[in-house]
């Protein structure tokens, strides 16, 4: 039934294919631009059907159970290898393989399309630059020596800080980012006001191997050289 395979897009979007047909379709999907576009739009329709189905609320402890279960698993940092082109399954633990199989249709469909990140960035919009950096599979994660969160740096030196536990900067103050390279004076690399709880900040300067990224609280408008002790500092990249 080669001629009818595009038509399976509907059944796939509604999870109505039998296992074997699902596999056949996923194999087809990897190389069919038309079906990828169609599937994206059918999934949006399915999302409408999901919203229309709204029923009772889940019990209040479900959220906690999900977070506990997530915490019990090793963090999935393995897929962030340079230019991952292989399917996800081999790099995940055995325990994760079952879940990966659930997602694999999506994974194949999604990752086969996007070797470059430009389209991701476009989709996210300029203000989502930091998210695009964090989402870059080739970017490395650098731990913080001070503060809570992480620094993410792409191979070409674009970087973003994902921070939590910061409050908005006090009145008349701002957070200021610094890139520190060896003995050279810290370079001012952007200001941000701070949000309650969590923060995703782009760094306005290339970050290279050996650099440390830090954040201080400075007077509004920023300063040319830090006047305070850092409240956030990464380890060396």
């Amino acid at each position, binding site marked *: 039934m080669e001629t009818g395979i595009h038509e399976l897009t509907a059944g796939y979007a509604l999870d109505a294919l039998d296992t074997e047909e699902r596999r056949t379709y996923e194999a087809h999907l990897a190389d069919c631009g038309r079906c990828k576009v169609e599937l994206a739009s059918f999934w*949006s329709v399915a999302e409408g059907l999901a919203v229309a*189905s*709204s*029923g009772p609320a889940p019990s209040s402890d479900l959220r906690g159970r999900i977070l506990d279960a997530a915490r019990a698993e090793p963090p999935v940092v393995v897929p962030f290898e340079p230019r991952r082109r292989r399917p996800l399954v081999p790099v995940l633990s055995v325990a994760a393989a079952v879940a*990966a199989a659930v997602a694999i249709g999506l994974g194949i469909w999604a990752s086969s399309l*996007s070797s470059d990140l430009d389209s991701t960035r476009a*989709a996210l919009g300029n203000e989502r630059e930091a998210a695009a950096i964090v989402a870059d599979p080739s970017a490395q994660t650098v731990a913080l020596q001070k503060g809570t969160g992480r620094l993410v740096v792409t191979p070409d030196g674009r970087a973003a800080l994902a921070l939590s536990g910061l409050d908005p900067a006090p009145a008349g103050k701002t957070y200021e980012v610094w890139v520190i390279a060896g003995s050279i004076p810290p370079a001012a690399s952007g200001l941000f006001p701070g949000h309650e*709880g969590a923060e995703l900040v782009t760094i306005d300067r290339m970050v290279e191997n050996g650099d440390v990224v830090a954040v201080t609280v400075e007077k509004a408008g920023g300063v040319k050289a830090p006047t305070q002790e850092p409240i956030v500092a990464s380890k060396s990249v």
Partner: protein
Amino acid sequence: MRKRHAHLSDEALVALVARGEESALAELYDRVGRVAYGLAFRVLRDERLAEDAVQEGFLALWRTAAAFRAERAKASTWILTLVHRRAVDLVRREERRRTEPIGEQVAAHAGESETTEEAAWLRFERERVQAALSELPDVQREAIELAYYGGFSQSELAERLGVPLGTIKSRMFAGLARLRELLDDAAPEGSWKPEFTN
């Protein structure tokens, strides 16, 4: 707790989840969990199983967030797809499908634990989709509803309804394509939660 990441898009949150950020997973649950559970419950008709499906769907998100590409689907769509697939797997395994309308049971709960704004938005969206569904020819609506809410595969539906498999496939495709048109027409600006605007 609820507003911790309120300024971040769903897609940015998925990127953080892929970096192992639990609070981003929590925020996504706060945003999508309610609808995901409603969907799982509609398919499974059982609270415990519905919670299992939601939990496994979110853990699949936790494990595979790195595979997500924002330019191809919204994060909420992806999460609901993960949960729905798990719910369908469970319902087929449990053989516990029922197809009678869920009616009162749901109506009685609708609006519970939602903020006013969420409740209004959900009600609006629900009515919009139901109106569109009601415009479909009966056989198309039946195929879509039994598949998506009932968890029946196309071949099971062919057997159940006594029609050729090819007919079911065509009905489902034509029905979804028509539904897409109807929802596009009926979509006021910025209808489904706009994530890329501002």
